């Protein structure tokens, strides 16, 4: 009989780290802070994810890609993936690896929110300049804005700031 690997949390998370954002292949759903809960009972895995934006059309694709990846694990017979709103995703959930991956792709990480004066700070992902302007808060996807760097004269995108301080 084949010895079955125990499906522990660490193993599941390392598998989920292989599931990339369908549009940004340099960041995983773990890097984006989308993984809320993982659990395994015997050979069944259940993963609960946080949607970044509620209307994001990539969510069903991510759901499918996660389930497929998890079933590749030794000893996994079933993988259930579902989304929850019990904790809202906020942009500060993006990890250090996520920030690096976004920059590598040419997307500035979510702005830093300065609570005292309510301002945001975004740096150009190409040259690092702070001399940037917002062209459009809304971008090609729900989670991104369009900006322009006055220093290196490149248009670029930035992840939108999503914070529970915004109301």
């Amino acid at each position: 009989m084949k010895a079955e690997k125990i499906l522990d949390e660490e193993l599941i998370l390392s598998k989920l780290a292989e599931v990339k954002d369908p549009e940004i292949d340099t960041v995983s759903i773990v890097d984006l802070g989308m993984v809320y809960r993982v659990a395994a009972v015997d050979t069944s895995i259940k993963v609960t994810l946080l949607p970044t934006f509620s209307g994001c059309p990539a969510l069903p694709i991510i759901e499918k890609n996660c389930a497929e990846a998890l079933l590749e694990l030794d000893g996994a017979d079933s993988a259930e993936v579902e989304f929850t709103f019990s904790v809202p995703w906020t942009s500060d959930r993006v990890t250090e690896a996520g920030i690096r991956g976004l920059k590598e792709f040419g997307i500035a990480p979510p702005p830093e929110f300065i609570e005292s004066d309510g301002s945001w700070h975004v740096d150009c992902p190409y040259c690092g300049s702070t001399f940037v302007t917002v062209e459009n808060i809304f971008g090609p996807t729900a989670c991104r804005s369009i900006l322009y760097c006055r220093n290196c004269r490149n248009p670029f995108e930035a992840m939108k700031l999503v914070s529970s301080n915004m109301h």
Partner: protein
Amino acid sequence: MEKTESGKFEGLTETDQAYLADLLKQLADDDYLLSFRSSEWLGLAPHIEEDVASASISQDMMGHAAMYYGLLGDIYGRDADDLAHFRGPADRRNSILTEKRNGEGEYLDVPKYDWAYHVVRNLYYNMHKKVKLVALKQSSSTPLRDVAAKAAMELYYHELHWRTWFIQLMNSSDDAKARMAAALEKVNGECADLFHLGKYSEDITRKGYIAPASEMKDSFRKEMEKVFDQTDSVFSFPDDQKENGRLGRHTEDLEHALELMSEVYGSVPYAKW
């Protein structure tokens, strides 16, 4: 659609489920209808960046509708897409404001839409939604609180967007001012049911699902007065109007919207999207 958690309303009595279902229909149908009407501006907005912004907002709103339909589906044991597409006008609980056409003409023919109306309607709707989401974040129903918290973060950008457009156009050329005045008059004839809570309004508020309509109306008035203070106009809000969408009494425009919106989905209802 993606799979979301289920079984959130287990343990509630049937009557409580009926109250919540009516409230969820109001919230879901509002976002669904206005998201559709706003999406009819695709390719027609005044400039390219606005086209991106307006379409992105519509997408977010459809996401909010999907969250509410998901909860409704959890109560009914039905598919969220079916609830969005296959409910007739009499079962719809959206405000009249969200169903009206954008102006004369058809999208696929010669659309002569009114941007001033789009701006005014969206400012009124989004400010109303902001106040409602604040109230829903205090709801006695946990799933409603969770969904409201999610929607509120996205609404932040929407409300800012429409408020900016509104103030700029209200202080712009004489032509813009005249168009905005006409749009304000039109919206005033269609928005009285925004804060109506439907046939179970007393039960819905008694159960603490949402704050009483009068409280929310007061908050709305205060928010809108702050916006109007930056213009030459004075804010007013109607007491009543002929139709009331919250009670399922709609205009012909709703049928028009539902037919168009569910045409593709209804053509092959068993297709997997």
